[in-house]
């Protein structure tokens, strides 16, 4: 077991890799009562097509999410929710573009709960009947999201930014696609991607790492490493797919969504640092202490705003979504902002200070730590123990050079207006 200091955070992350490739990351706390366990596979809606033993597979859309729902079906009839509830433990699961995770969190029964979590994710039980039954539930889930205007706006923007990437598709699929899913589709996915060398376990909170590792080994050591199927590579184009679109929805106040597509192949900065610098750039431009926000607020151009970066191989995309009574004017202002970038050293350093303080605050909360560390493992392949140091070392000059390498005209813009 390796012990890695999380620099500046008074915490140690213990890691262990089983012979079959399964990775375990553990951050124990001695002053907390609660714990959180995540058992994850690097399989999500990004994977659409693959070949295994010269056979190709292309299941219906939404299959990863469907599988996640059906993981809770057990042959022995023990309902995972019931099992966890017996010790007052919360259980859940979620599917994303690039991962699926099964989680439980509570204060009691750690050993048994860990054991059970590993077992139930290890024992798929799909029947025609239980697959059929789930279709109604997932259809309602899809409809629930479709009715949310912000979700609809984001999906339109995704379609317009990406030409080929699965990031243009809803993680849950569509009602007509999920209706086609069979138990065989689920087993194919499961056998291909729920393999130890494609999975990891993250545990944070009140537990004993030695005990946890011995349980994990006991449960999963027998599993064999398998070859990962060859996933069909999808090449995304450098430019946005569609530059502009106007859509109508049941809203009173218009919304806008802007995507900036940044191809990264020619940028010579490590991935993690690149993410930090890009985030720094948009925080300075559009963050809560930016001049843009102050001006937009004063001019009553902005009612709410949401910012995010997304990564896929060789491309990063910045999302800005806002609600505004003057969509055209706001779009002009944003374009203007992107054309006249000025980075002040003092602002840059203030944001660094904020990020460092936030990292220190974050470690106080088990939930926040789990989600932060989980994202790092998915994004960068492993934990990032020296994040604070990396933030401290950030330099304005590097950001200024980076800005020169970005084409700020590579934008996709969606306006959402009120349906008449």
């Amino acid at each position, binding site marked *: 077991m390796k012990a890695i200091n999380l620099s500046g955070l008074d915490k140690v992350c213990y890691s262990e890799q089983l012979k079959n490739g399964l990775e375990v990351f553990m951050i124990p706390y001695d*002053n907390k009562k609660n714990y959180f366990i995540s058992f994850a596979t690097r399989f999500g809606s990004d994977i659409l097509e693959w070949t295994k033993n010269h056979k190709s597979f292309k299941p219906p859309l939404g299959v990863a999410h469907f599988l996640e729902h059906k993981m809770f079906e057990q042959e022995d009839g023990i309902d995972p929710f019931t099992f966890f509830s017996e010790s*007052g433990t919360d259980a859940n699961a979620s599917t994303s573009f690039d991962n699926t995770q099964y989680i439980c969190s509570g204060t*009691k029964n750690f050993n048994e709960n860990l054991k059970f979590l590993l077992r139930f994710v290890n024992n798929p039980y799909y029947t025609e009947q239980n697959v059929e039954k789930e279709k*109604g539930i997932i259809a309602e889930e899809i409809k629930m999201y479709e009715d949310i205007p912000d979700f609809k706006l984001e999906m339109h923007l995704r379609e317009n930014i990406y030409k080929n990437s699965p990031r243009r598709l809803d993680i849950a699929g569509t009602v007509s696609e999920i209706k086609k899913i069979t138990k065989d589709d689920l087993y194919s996915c499961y056998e291909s991607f729920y393999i130890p060398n494609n999975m990891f376990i993250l545990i944070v909170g009140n537990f004993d790492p030695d005990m946890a590792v011995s349980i994990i080994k006991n449960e999963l050591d027998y599993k064999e490493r398998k070859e990962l199927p060859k996933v069909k590579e999808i090449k995304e184009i450098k430019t946005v797919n569609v530059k502009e679109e106007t859509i109508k929805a049941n809203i009173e106040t218009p919304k806008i969504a802007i995507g900036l597509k940044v191809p990264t192949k020619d940028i010579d900065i490590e991935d993690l640092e690149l993410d930090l610098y890009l985030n720094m750039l948009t925080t300075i431009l559009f963050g809560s202490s930016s001049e843009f926000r*102050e001006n937009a607020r004063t001019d*009553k151009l902005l009612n709410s705003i949401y910012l995010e970066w997304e990564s896929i191989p060789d491309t990063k995309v910045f999302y800005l979504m806002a609600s505004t009574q003057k969509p055209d004017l706001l779009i002009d202002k944003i374009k203007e902002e992107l054309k006249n970038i000025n980075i002040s050293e003092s602002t840059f350093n203030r944001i660094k200070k904020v990020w460092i*303080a*936030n990292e220190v*605050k974050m470690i*106080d909360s088990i939930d926040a730590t789990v989600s932060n560390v989980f994202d790092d493992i998915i994004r960068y392949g492993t934990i990032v123990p020296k994040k604070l140091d990396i933030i401290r070392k950030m330099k304005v000059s590097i950001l200024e050079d980076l800005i020169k390498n970005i084409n700020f005209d590579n934008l996709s813009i969606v306006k959402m207006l009120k349906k008449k």
Partner: protein
Amino acid sequence: MHYIKKDLAAYNLHLIKTKKFKTISVRIVFHTPIKKEEITSRNILTDLLLQSSKKYKSRRELTIKSEDLYAADISTSNRRLGNYIFTSFSLQTLSDEYTEKGNLEATLEFLSEIIFNPDITNKEFNFEKLGIVKNNATVALNSLKEDATGYSLIRMTEAYDKNSPVSYRMIGYDKDLEAITTETIYNTYKKMLNNDYVDIFVVGNFETKEMTELIKKHFKFRMLKKKKEEYILPAKKPRKRRLIAKETIDNTQSKLAIACSLNKLTDYERHYALILANIIFGGGTDSKLFKEVREKNSLCYTIRSSYNKLDNLLLITAGIDKKNFEKATDLITKNLNNMKKGKFTKKDIDMAKEFYKTSAEEVEEREDRIINEYLLREILKTEELKERVEKINKVTKQEIVKACKKINMDTIFLLEGVKDESN
């Protein structure tokens, strides 16, 4: 965790000492009996106080100041608990040992500046800032239907009893918004400072004496203590026949919202038996509603019940297809009747008790939950959490059944999604 309550005449200071956090959390809580026509101006006031102050002339200047204080987090909220409206100013900041000496005091001074030194000239708030805040509020009011579940709950409670605070829209009202001026909002502000009850909560690792002095120095109130109105809303008289109300929306999914009134609960039922009843029925992860309506009959993705002891209410919400309206309500009714008939097992009860115990144990792991716990204890005068866990453990099946018999399904509301799915 160590709790000290100090009566500082104009307010109660609640000090909760714990070494679990690197931060200090402070919440200044004002509360006063709720009036429907005052909700909107309360919202505007708290938003306005975060737009500027005498010293920091814009939202940007305020934000930069809080960033300079090592990302001190300041937020406000207005919520209703029973008969009262609670206005909170929350602060979370790193302890000095993780920043620099004096940062905590500077942060408290900053919060004090926001509350006591607003952007006022001649008894009027800043006109321009008020315009910004009112505009945002208008947009929020117009966008009410975008959150279909939230909207269905509002419409359902209005059908349930439009005169009860239960139905008051915490987002506010157009009519009241229009009437707000720089002067009226000044009156709202003065009234809050002069008339509201005040409690201050501090959570973190600090010296009692030092913290008490700091709080006394930066937060001074003049307030006469009056006799208090009841916190808990009176129980509603049961209807002879349950009310079914519908409204359409241009969505694909329909939202079902049901209100059950709770009649003549004893204190014991309110704080113990009914909590377990709700977890078993629809509040827990393994509830009857989840199993029967979702898992067995595939009628929905979300379904849950929530119990509000201050409102004498039990609410049920679900997202369904409109063609399943009757089937879903029948199943919900049947499961509620099963609760009343005692058709649940000892295992169900034990699981509910464990569920309660875990959430009780998790209280001390989060600052906001700690403050909520002490706030509720302050107003409801309930026992300490530890005693409540012990009492919950002793609740019998008979007691749960008896409490369930006091649940009356009163109003069934369907926000009917009429969008053609083939589009």
